[in-house]
């Protein structure tokens, strides 16, 4: 049987990876700096980050900043899970946190593929982090 601590560590490190990616995207947004990105027929980070989908609808807040906040929350929940006396609600909370992010990710993937016609590789990396978090959080909820 898989150790719960091991899956909590996966959540912790994937959360930190999400923090690093989202922080880079957020800094690049506010600094108006181009992303390090291999552009091709399908990949074009600039097209994605310059689109209106790069902002939280109705605000001037970049979705990258929202992603940074989510990643920090995910790290905090994972840290709680790794503690000596992890609260019983943590697995459910982490699953709900991940499910909400996955819904947002699906909306952004729709925007990239259908609306913009290009994908951003940094955004895709972050989307993978969310998917991994969702799967691991679901497994932990199952085992709780």
């Amino acid at each position, binding site marked *: 049987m898989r150790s719960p601590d091991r899956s909590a560590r996966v959540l912790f490190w994937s959360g930190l990876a999400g923090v690093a990616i989202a922080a880079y995207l957020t800094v690049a947004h506010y600094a108006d700096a181009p992303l390090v990105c291999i552009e091709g*027929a399908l990949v*074009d980070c600039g*097209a994605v980050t*310059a*689109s*209106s*989908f790069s902002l939280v609808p109705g605000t001037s807040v970049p979705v990258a900043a929202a992603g940074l906040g989510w990643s920090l929350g995910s790290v905090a929940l994972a840290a709680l899970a790794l503690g000596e006396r992890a609260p019983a609600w943590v697995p459910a909370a982490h699953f709900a946190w991940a499910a909400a992010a*996955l819904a947002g990710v*699906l909306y952004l*993937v*729709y*925007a990239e*593929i*259908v*609306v*913009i*016609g*290009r994908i951003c590789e940094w955004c895709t990396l972050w989307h993978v982090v969310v*998917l991994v978090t*969702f*799967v691991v959080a*679901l*497994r932990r909820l*199952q*085992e709780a």
Partner: protein
Amino acid sequence: MAEVSARAPARGAPARGKSRRGPARRSVWRGPLPVAVSVAAVAILVTAFILVSRAPAPPATADDAAPVVAKATTVPPAVFDAVGSGGVAPRLTRTDAATLRTATGKPIVIYVGADYCPFCASERWSLVVALSRFGTFRDLGLTRSSPSDVYPNTATFSFRGASYASEWVELSAVETADRFGSPRERPDATQQASLDRFDPKGSIPFVSLADRYVTIGAGYPTDVLRGKDWQEIADLLHQPSSSVARAVIGNANHLTAAICAVTEGRPADVCGSGALRGLAPGR
């Protein structure tokens, strides 16, 4: 083991009672099925997005053009006033060049673009809306941007084969390629001279307002138009609170303010309108 209780009972075995349903449900919940279903759902959704993005867009017909052009070129002044900048940041750059004029003294508005270019697609909407306040288009056609470029199949106008008559300004427009990238027209000497001076890299769309104000690229995010056909966009231009009107007309108001600067405020009914108050014609 929990897995055993999830299986169907052997023939002849007693029907399962309430006491056995709990463990059966728990075994399904604790098994790999929820994860597999979740991942499969994500994969199916992403596949559906890819299939939708590759669906061919219907082409425009000549019959489509007339009502779209009629709507886009008759935006009421009240809508321009209500939108103002529409939250669109000014992109025009003021130059120190002399005003470029025709032999008869009319300022020349230069547009260089291509049908395939999605950013040209969005800029054309604003240019058509703005120039319609100074004159009249004829034979303005409809097209879409490239199906394989960013913002694929964006609905727009094409200046190829179109003409423009105005008492105040001259339009000198060239579309250098069709929507599939095949070369079409070449810039004439006047257009090329303006490109050489203000856009040496040849980026498109390039717009020069008598060489006094220039802009390269789209004035607003092209994805505002995504998923909308010509008539839908044209109809939304008459609704000042719509995102399309705010983007297209906000950008058109910036262009109009700059055109008014080169026509020295003529015609007064356009250049004196409330929509242009507070809009600096260029940076």
